[in-house]
């Protein structure tokens, strides 16, 4: 028997990537921005949804302030990785987020996280943020995306 309530909506898939940035760890912010920039460079549309600890990285001056997800060792591990990244000439998160915006990427901030964590719009880098939204917007975009990731 067919359950009409559960029928899949036949949404056409666009050449689009929708990525949830849940973690605020430095290495995972790198992953999100590298993948986002790569997708934009290959002609995809990209939306990054910053939520929970990820949203903290959109606060003024906080983009690269996250710890390492593994072996942070009170910041010692992060320092070592940063040194190696400098040596390998890896671009800064600031350059990556600027490029992301220049290539037309969208940054969305989760309004529920803002309420729970007491974050006000003026605490955030509003110049980067395209919109404030909640799960409905994400699902709508995810339905039409050919790639979705949770980082």
């Amino acid at each position, binding site marked *: 028997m067919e359950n009409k309530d559960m029928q899949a909506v036949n949404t056409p898939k666009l050449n689009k990537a929708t990525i949830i940035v849940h973690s605020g760890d430095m290495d995972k912010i790198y992953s999100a921005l590298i993948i986002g*920039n*790569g997708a934009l460079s*290959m*002609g995809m549309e990209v939306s990054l949804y910053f939520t929970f600890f990820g949203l903290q990285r959109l606060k003024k001056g906080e983009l690269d302030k996250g710890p390492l997800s593994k072996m942070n060792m009170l910041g010692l591990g992060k320092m070592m990785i940063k040194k190696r990244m400098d040596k390998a*000439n*890896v671009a800064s998160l600031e350059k990556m987020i600027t*490029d992301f915006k*220049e290539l037309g990427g969208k940054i969305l901030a989760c309004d529920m996280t803002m309420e729970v964590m007491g974050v006000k719009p003026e605490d955030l880098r509003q110049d980067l943020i395209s919109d404030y939204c909640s799960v409905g917007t994400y699902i709508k975009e995810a339905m039409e995306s050919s790639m979705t990731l949770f980082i």
Partner: protein
Amino acid sequence: MGEIKVDVKGQTCPVPLVECRKALRKAAIGDIVEIEGTHPASKKEIPMAVNALGYKIISIEEEGNTWKIRICKQ
């Protein structure tokens, strides 16, 4: 027809790909974008991006560690 030169020698992932895309966005139809770099994976990934974008690779040259890719924005 103009020509845009991009130098990403010494840069690593994802900078060569991103700078290539930035140049292609700025280029007008018919312009040539010439990108020169040393990051090994980008030598094959830039052509992938160019194909996905529907533009045309004119040439790919390599000398020592340095590659040079010429793209036409058609």
